[in-house]
Structures are given as structure tokens and as C-alpha cells.
């Protein structure tokens, strides 16, 4: 397609993307560089039941209202929120770098900062779950594809179940099973021979449980995409390979996988993006003591008794940048393919 034709073809989509994707992102960026006005505090007398009257600090509404009306966006703070301890923690990083004598001490203190701790979990999760999802998805697709055609429909339905179940519900089911009084939890206690053995009390095991959940939830997606790809597999190539005496493994490696490669890239792209934003299992497993993610921070900032909108916005922008960095190798490759195809 000529580029000019493509441009006209793409215009409606482009406009919709501008309206529904680009503008909200601009609004999030603006919210992240403005913070609420400095509060004007006053001492007031409060009277409450069963307690009587006490002197407490409160916000001077009149003074604050004037500030708000003068500058409705709030106070401009630039990148302050991005650099504070709740986000990139630049001051703490510098101090840590200057005072740590060993690498061990440096890492310990680095992972005591919320963002870096969350990144440690998120990146481990992303780089463990994504490849395993691809492999497991392919294995299920190959297995289902080799079944008798009467069994296929049924197996496809069952293989898709984890994707059909709402993520929060799915993670809660697993959460109850691994509880020390749940079926998997008590089986593990029996195996370990230790009545105090608890999967939920151990950070390492909690990470494993979260990753198992991530794999369980995402594998059907990879499966269904690969299975569709297998239906387009040219039979003559496979037959030629068989005549040449290729084993089953060699057929998969040299014929099937290269044929599916564009789909592998697609699934990897989607999974990298999804896994970097891991959220539901952390809430479902009540795992925030052991594992957090950027998305969980946003949820936590917005769900507290006092809402931190600027902080949540800054975390959102950092998430977008993180996803862009993760996807850059794949995007660069797609760009090269695009140029090569011309």
C-alpha cells in the first residue's frame, strides 16, 4: 500500500487514538507535575461523642479555597514527585551509593526503596512468566492439534478456562488453596513435615505462587494464538521433512516454530506488556507484604484514606516508560522488517 493511501486509511483510527489514548496520557503527565497546594493549617477545637472536646490541627478552608481558586491546577512541582522516595528516590540513591561499602549493603538498601523493590519483583515476574508462557502455550497447542478431531473442541474449551475466569476470582481460588488450611497448603505441610510451614509467610514461595498463577492465567492466550497458527501450517513442507527422515522434534524445531515466529513475536509483545503491569494476583493473594508492582502502587495511592493523585499519576507515567523500554527490542525488529519488506 502506498504511504499516502495508508495515511487516509489510517486517519479515522489515528484521530480516535489521539482522542482516547494520547490526550488522557497528556492529562496524566500534567497531573504528575502538579501537586495540591500547601495546606494552611490551623488549631481548632473538636468535640466528639464519648471523648469530649480536644484541640486538633485542621485545614483552614477559607485560605485554602483562595489558593485553589487562584490556581486550580495546584502547585507546579516539576519532576519533584518523580524524584521523591516513593518513586525514583534520587536523594536516597545518591546517599546509598556514597555510604555503602559493599555491593551487598548497596543492594539491601536499594531494595528497601519501594520502587526498586517493586521493579525487582515485576522484572523477575516478567522474564520468568513470559518465556514459560510461550513454551507452555506451544506445547498445549501441539498436543491439542494432534488429538482426534472429536476430542479437539472439548479440550480447547477446557484449555481456555483459566483465561475465561476473572483474574481476581482465579487468584483468590488459588489463594485459598495455598492457605495453610487449604488443600495445597496442608499437603505441603504434610510433605515438609513442619506444622508451621506456610507458603504465604515466605517471600520466595509467594513469588513462586504468583508466577504459577501468572503462567496458569496467560498460557491459554498463547495456546489459542499458536493453535490458530498451526491450522495454516503448509502440509507439503511437513511431508517433505518427514520424507527426509526428520524426527518429531526436528519437525517442530525447523518447520513449525519458524512458521509460527511472527505469532511468537506477537504473543511475547502482549505478554511482556501484561506481565509488567502485574496487579490482580497481588491483590487476590494479599501478597503486598512480599511482592508489589507499579500497578499496585497506583491502586494503593488511590485507595487510601487520603488520595495521592500526583503520586499515582507519576507512577503511571513511569509504567508507560517502562513498557516502552521493555518493548523497544521487539519494536525495533518490527521496524526493520517493515523497512526490509519495502
Amino acid at each position, binding site marked *: 500500500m502506498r504511504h499516502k493511501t495508508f495515511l487516509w486509511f489510517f486517519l479515522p483510527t489515528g484521530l480516535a487514538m489521539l482522542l482516547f489514548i494520547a490526550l488522557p496520557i497528556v492529562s496524566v503527565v500534567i497531573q504528575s507535575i502538579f501537586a495540591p497546594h500547601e495546606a494552611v493549617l490551623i488549631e481548632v477545637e*473538636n468535640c466528639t461523642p464519648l471523648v469530649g472536646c480536644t484541640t486538633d490541627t485542621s485545614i483552614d478552608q477559607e485560605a485554602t479555597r483562595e489558593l485553589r481558586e487562584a490556581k486550580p491546577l495546584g502547585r507546579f512541582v516539576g519532576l519533584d514527585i518523580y524524584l521523591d522516595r516513593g518513586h525514583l528516590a534520587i536523594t536516597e540513591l545518591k546517599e546509598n551509593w556514597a555510604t555503602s561499602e559493599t555491593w551487598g549493603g548497596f543492594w539491601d538498601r536499594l531494595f528497601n526503596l519501594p520502587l526498586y523493590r517493586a521493579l525487582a519483583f515485576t522484572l523477575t515476574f516478567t522474564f520468568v512468566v513470559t518465556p514459560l508462557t510461550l513454551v507452555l502455550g506451544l506445547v498445549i497447542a501441539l498436543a491439542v492439534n494432534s488429538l482426534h478431531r472429536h476430542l479437539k473442541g472439548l479440550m480447547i474449551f477446557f484449555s481456555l478456562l483459566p483465561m475465561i475466569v476473572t483474574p481476581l476470582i482465579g487468584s483468590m481460588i488459588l489463594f485459598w488453596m495455598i*492457605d495453610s488450611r487449604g488443600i495445597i497448603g496442608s499437603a505441603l505441610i504434610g510433605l515438609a513435615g513442619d506444622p508451621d510451614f506456610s507458603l504465604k*509467610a515466605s517471600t520466595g514461595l509467594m513469588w513462586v505462587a504468583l508466577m504459577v498463577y501468572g503462567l496458569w492465567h496467560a498460557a491459554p492466550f498463547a495456546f489459542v494464538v499458536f493453535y490458530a497458527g498451526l491450522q495454516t501450517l503448509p502440509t507439503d513442507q511437513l511431508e517433505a521433512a518427514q520424507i527426509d527422515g526428520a524426527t518429531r522434534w526436528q519437525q517442530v524445531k525447523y518447520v513449525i516454530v519458524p512458521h509460527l515466529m511472527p505469532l511468537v513475536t506477537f504473543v511475547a509483545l502482549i505478554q511482556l506488556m501484561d506481565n509488567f503491569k502485574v496487579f490482580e494476583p497481588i491483590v487476590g493473594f494479599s501478597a503486598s507484604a512480599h511482592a508489589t508492582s507499579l500497578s499496585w502502587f497506583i491502586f494503593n495511592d488511590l*485507595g487510601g484514606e487520603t488520595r495521592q493523585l500526583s503520586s499515582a499519576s507519576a507512577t503511571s507515567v513511569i509504567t508507560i516508560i517502562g513498557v516502552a523500554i521493555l518493548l523497544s527490542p521487539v519494536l525495533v525488529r518490527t521496524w526493520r522488517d517493515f523497512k526490509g519488506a519495502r
Partner: protein
Amino acid sequence: MFLKKVALVSAMALMGGQAFAACEISARVNIVGNEFAAIQAVGAGAQECTGAEVNTNLTANHNEINLEGMSGNPSEYTSAIVANSSIVKLMNDDVIRPLDDLVAKHGGGLTKGQLITIDGKVMAVAFMANAQHLMYRKDILEQAGVDVPTTYEEMLDAAKSIREQGILENPVGGAYAAGWNLGQEFNNIFLGYGGSFFKPGTAEPNVNTEAGVNALNLMKALTEYMNPDFLTHDSNATNAEYRAGNVALLNMWGSRASQQITTEGVLEEVVNGHAIAAPMTVGGGTTPASTLWWDGWTVGKGISDEEAEATFVALTHGIRPEMLNEETSPLAVWLIDGYQPTEASQGVFAAAQMSTPPYPMLPFMGLMHSALGNELADFLQGKESAEQALADVEAAYIAAAKEKGFLE
């Protein structure tokens, strides 16, 4: 079972309403609030009013929607049912109106003790009180030969005896789930040790102190006697452990006392052995290691005066003395005139008599609570020292308070 009870409460309230005062309103009423039996009874009472529509949205997620729902002009909701922690957010954003004129006009049935006064202006009308206090299994304490604990130190001794005699493996229960619950348990014990969250008259944090370290060490000692999954146990999970007979001692909300043994599936021995007592003290102090709470309703600022009046009239009707009956009385410690304390309410009354401190109604307390809930789990897992955990709390709080403009 629960639904049936709610239906019954509403039905009885409805009959009561017809028998007693008629409630006529002339503008819309829309109430947002938390979801538990006592608040549902109040909501049902307000809905008896005729003349205009009365809607309620009672949900456990009320904190995520009430500020937006009360903002704007006209706002979606005309009233938010709040507690001493959540009124602060509505005050900070200036979305609720002073009620003095409405109290003068329609508040004849309210007692002075129900009026929440901030800076001399009535900002909310309270209808129930709440506090965390001890709940225990008297049969198990008897079997172990220990007295009912009045201090946290005695609780630890009792737990030790129960475990050593092989009665229960993990006799202590506690809502120690990372997040709000964990922060709240720290608040209780920290206040019991005489701590104060902020340097007087400022928003500067003050938790990395001797009281803070003592509180954390005591919490750690308690967790040794808890189910190892304690960091994932919220109030519901803790109560489930209690009802299943796995726990003999716990610090629990008074608002849950009446449902503790009436829920379906509670073990027979738990029903027979269940007892409640006053909140415990700690470290030789006299102030209980607990906080006193109220629940009450507010009226929005972004609505017309007619809507505000209708809201006030309907909710005053919802908490009129006649709404108390056999079904509704045990649901809460009501602050309503003519309330007769029930068996389940003695823990909260003891808390009030022992001058338990109220949960701080400060604009920046919510940020401190979040910081505590997120940063203390590392210490309880043995990953860092108490001092380090408290230093992390202060650093996290300072970052948040700077963002919200409470600190320079």
C-alpha cells in the same frame, strides 16, 4: 441468613416508621456509606421517608467513591456516612456543610453528645461508637488455668500457657494483614505505650521513638503465637479463625461482637465459650491500647438547601430513638437516646470509660496510616530492625506529606 436478617430489620423498621413518626421530604436524598448491618438499618430508616426519592449506596468500597460522589455541584450524593478517619478527607476537600442551622430547625431528637463539632461548627451527626477490645474463649482460658488478660503482657503469658499445654498451637488472633489493618494494630499499641504520631502542633512525624520500637517488639512477640499467615489475615479472616475454634484471644472490633457467634457454621464450643472484655493496656500504662471511633452522617455542600434539608430530615428519621428495637439494638453501640447497652456492647463501653484515645482526626493521619501499613511488614518478617522499619515509615510519610502540601 444475613440477608434475611437485613430484610427483617428493614421490615420491622418500616412497620415502626408507620406506627410512629411520619417523615415527609420534598427533595432527593442519596446516601453513600460503608456496608455493615448497623449502617444498613440507618439507611433503611431514612428510606421510610415519603414525598421524594431516597437512595442509598452502601458498599465496602465507599472510601473509593465518596469524595468524587460528594464533589461537584450538584453532587451525586447528598450525604456520606463516615467515621472519624474518613470525615477528614471530606473536610480537607471542603465538600460537606456545617449543620448548625439544620440542627436548630429539625434536630430536636438529637442529643448533644451526637454532634461532631469541628472548630465550633457541627459537621456530622454520630449514631454509633466503636472500638477494638479483647474477645476470648473462657472455656480455653479456664482449661489452661489463666485469668482473663487485662494487659498485652498477660495476653502473651496466657498464649504461652495455652500453647505449652497443647490446647491450641496458635492461640492469638489478630488482623495483621499488610495495609490498613496492620497500620491500625500498630496505632493501638503505639498509643498504649504513650506514643504520639506527630510532633505537637506540626505535621512532622514522630513514630521512630521508644514507644514505636516497643510497640513493634510487642507486635513481633504476639505474631509468634499467631497463624504463620498473619500478614494476609484481615478482620474477616481473623474472625473466621476464631469461629473455627483455632484462636482463643484476639483484639477485635466491637462492631463485630454481636455477629461473632450468630454467623452460620460457628463451632458449638465457640458459641458457648465466647466472651468479651475491655481493651488491654500495655507497658504498665493506664490508657488502653486501642482507639475510639464514631460513625455518623454528613450533608454535602454541593447541593441545594432543599436537598440538604431533606437529607437531614431523612437521616435524623433513620436514627430516631424509635428505630431501636430487639433486632437493631444488638447491631452496634448506638449513641441514640434511649439505647440500652446489650451484652455485646460492654467492650466498647469499657473502652469509653477507660478514656481510650479517639482515632486522630488530623488531615495528615491518613498518609501516616498508609505509610505504617506498607512499611512495617518487613520488620515482622524479620527482614530489618524496628528502627529501620520506623525510619522507613517516616521517610514514606514525609514524601507523601510533601506531595499533599502538609510539609515543606
